[in-house]
């Protein structure tokens, strides 16, 4: 798989050069929403990286005397029912929530891409079998299955991630297979076959790079859904164990205070919303420039 990843990476790299040389960058920037998405995601990422360094307080230290304090200079986002500084919890949470999203998405992506590539490229029985597998996974409503799995395994972030990863890979497999099948029939792959190019090289050098675009897009969009999924499971009560400052859990806990201390729920709520929004916008933007279905934008020679 590493090779595959590599060539995805290199493909993305090459795309990036293409971006610079072609009008793609312009295409991307033409839509302010894309730019907004990019900036939000960048911001969140920075928060995740340096958050703990700049956080004013320890995310778990309580101060019962100052519980339920509204936003103030000391506590820009106020304090929660145990007097913990929400801003600090939010910053630490960013790393956590983003980490979960990345981890889950990566597992899904690797698993799905491998299967999809295998199915699409080998075809025949293998394809049939793998696709049935995909159908089976897709037959279960994602969150429902995740809920059951996480529930049976017992509440913990690890299990939540596991569950979410297990239920998410199929869409990648399907996407990749579809693109592979489409690409496989394109003349340049047929040409490669005639040039005695090895199957493996065809798969990694000719198919993967063309698959990479849509996959990257899907992954980006997926980040958002994973974050939402985690929040949902946390709300049901399968999420992080206290005092972990996980956004979903913070939001779920804060809901009892919605009337009396709105910030406890709404601060993490808005954080989640922005993050998801950011990734979705970014995903749309990337789709405009990476997805072959939108190749037109690339081939535009004014």
């Amino acid at each position: 798989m590493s090779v595959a990843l590599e060539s995805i990476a290199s493909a993305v790299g090459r795309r990036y050069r293409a971006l610079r040389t072609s009008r793609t960058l312009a295409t991307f920037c033409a839509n302010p929403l894309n730019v907004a998405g990019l900036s939000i995601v960048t911001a969140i990422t920075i928060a995740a990286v340096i958050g703990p360094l700049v956080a004013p307080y320890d995310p778990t230290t309580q101060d019962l005397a100052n519980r339920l304090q509204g936003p103030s200079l000391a506590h820009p986002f106020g304090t929660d029912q145990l007097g913990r500084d929400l801003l600090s919890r939010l910053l630490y949470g960013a790393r956590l929530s983003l980490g979960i999203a990345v981890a889950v998405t990566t597992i899904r992506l690797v698993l799905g891409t491998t299967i999809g590539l295998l199915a699409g490229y080998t075809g025949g029985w293998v394809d049939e079998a793998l696709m049935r597998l995909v159908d089976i996974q897709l037959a279960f409503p994602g969150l429902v299955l995740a809920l059951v799995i996480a529930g049976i395994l017992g509440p913990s972030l690890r299990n939540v991630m596991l569950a979410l990863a297990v239920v998410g890979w199929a869409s990648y497999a399907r996407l990749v297979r579809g693109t592979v099948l489409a690409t496989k029939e394109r003349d340049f792959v047929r040409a490669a076959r005639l040039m005695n190019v090895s199957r493996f090289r065809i798969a990694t050098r000719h198919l993967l790079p063309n698959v990479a675009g849509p996959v990257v897009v899907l992954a980006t969009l997926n980040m958002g859904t994973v974050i939402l999924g985690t929040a949902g499971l946390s709300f049901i009560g399968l999420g992080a164990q206290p005092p972990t400052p996980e956004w979903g859990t913070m939001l779920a806990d804060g809901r009892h205070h919605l009337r009396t201390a709105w910030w406890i729920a709404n601060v993490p709520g808005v954080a989640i919303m922005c993050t998801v929004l950011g990734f979705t916008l970014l995903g749309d933007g990337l789709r405009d420039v990476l997805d072959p279905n939108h190749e037109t934008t690339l081939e535009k020679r004014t």
Partner: protein
Amino acid sequence: MMDTAPTRRQLLTAGVGAGIVGLAGCAETSLDAEADGTFTIVPTADPTGTGDSWDNWGGMTPYWTRVIEPLVWGTDGMQPQPWLATDWTATDDTTWVFDLREGVTFHNGDEMTADDVVHSFEEDILTERGDFVHGWLHVEPGSVDRIDDYTVSFETTEPFPGFPGTIAHNMIDIQPAEADRRAGEIIGTGPFTLAEMEQGQQLRVERFEDYWGGAPEPTELTFRAAEDATTRTDLLVAGEVDLIYEPATSRIDGLRERGDVRIETEQSSGSVFVSINIHREPTDDADLRRALNYAISQDEIVTTVLEGVGQPASGPLSTVIDWAADEELPAYERDRDRARDLVSQSSYDGEELTCLVENDMDDGRTLVQILQEEYEKIGVTLDVEVLESASLRDRTDRGEFHLELGTSQSNSPAADYIMWENFHTMGISNKDLYEAEGTGLHNLGGEVDELIETGFQSHDPDEKREAYVAAQREIMDAGVVIPLFYREYVVAADAELEGLDLHPIDKFAQWGELTRTT
């Protein structure tokens, strides 16, 4: 000794969702009055049944609704009180004779006689509900006999002074042979008759004109399901319901400030404490357990996160139980230095202690995090695991934990079993592990076992109290539990409501006097 026993799940936490209580919230909309005589009430648990067969009367939970009644009721002082039975006497160590109230009519118009009582016990209570009942009531099937139309005798398996208080329980109800509890054909003697049920949503009862205690004021009561405290509060504030049990803690202040809501607080038969697994490293070390006790300030907890609802506790049993000890017990005022010393003396060396808490325990997550913080300060790391009841019980059954944050609540005046089940070696908490590995969970064994047995079997209130208090002192000295607070529960209602009759056992509330002013 008892061969089979009721379980913690069924007894200790029989008040489903009974959690810590808080005070008032805030609200904008006003409560709109309804037609006189009809009221909507939201208890803490789903009135149409928890889905469990043992407390599910064909889709109706026996609590709150006052459709069915037991022979004995409980006073506000948690003493047995004549109800369908007017009087009872122990003719010998194991025989109880009950005189039934005359002129009690079932909802189908028939009069209640001894046959119905015998039927209810023999055909239903002792046979249909599961074996645990035998151990709970100390009565085996075939030991309930009709003496005459209005007299019934019970043969207990061993001397059991607590019997009358124990059967003063909503579940030990009397129904005629025609009734079919499981099919939902419920024929009770209560002041209200079951009118209709919508599973998981609501349950409606109507006034029973021929009630032996005189027809109640309300013509109709609707009990709605809303197990989430915040939702309950919202329902009241939005004026959709007239009375709710236990509004969300965070909202109580707000409710207090409203003119159109009245708040009633009642000390309950329940208490909240951390019970420690004294048979597992390192909490098998009394010093560590005491340290954990010294680290906590009950007052702070009550005044902050509980919004002042509840009483700081120094013992495991609610003080409404007459033999519960409080002043007599060693007071662990918060003293961190002392706690630290004790820790360093103890065998504890930095390992993580596991603290379990059930996920639907109201404010459980908050409380457990306070513990975590406090113990951090005395250098003890707590690893919190919020689990759903099943996993939780799985863990406790195996004894794979150090601390467990939980509530205990008695749904009948006789609370003896709380002592027995928790702290006696043969109590349900300890029995399995004791038999398996010679250990247990919270059982100090030896003297304490004896004291508990004495208390359990003595007919003399003073002797009983003495024994139990002694036992509780031993338990607290050894720091087997970390008492947090004696529960109070809050009922918030439309300010126009009059005639609330609350009871330490929240499920004993009577609605007969319920009226609206103006």
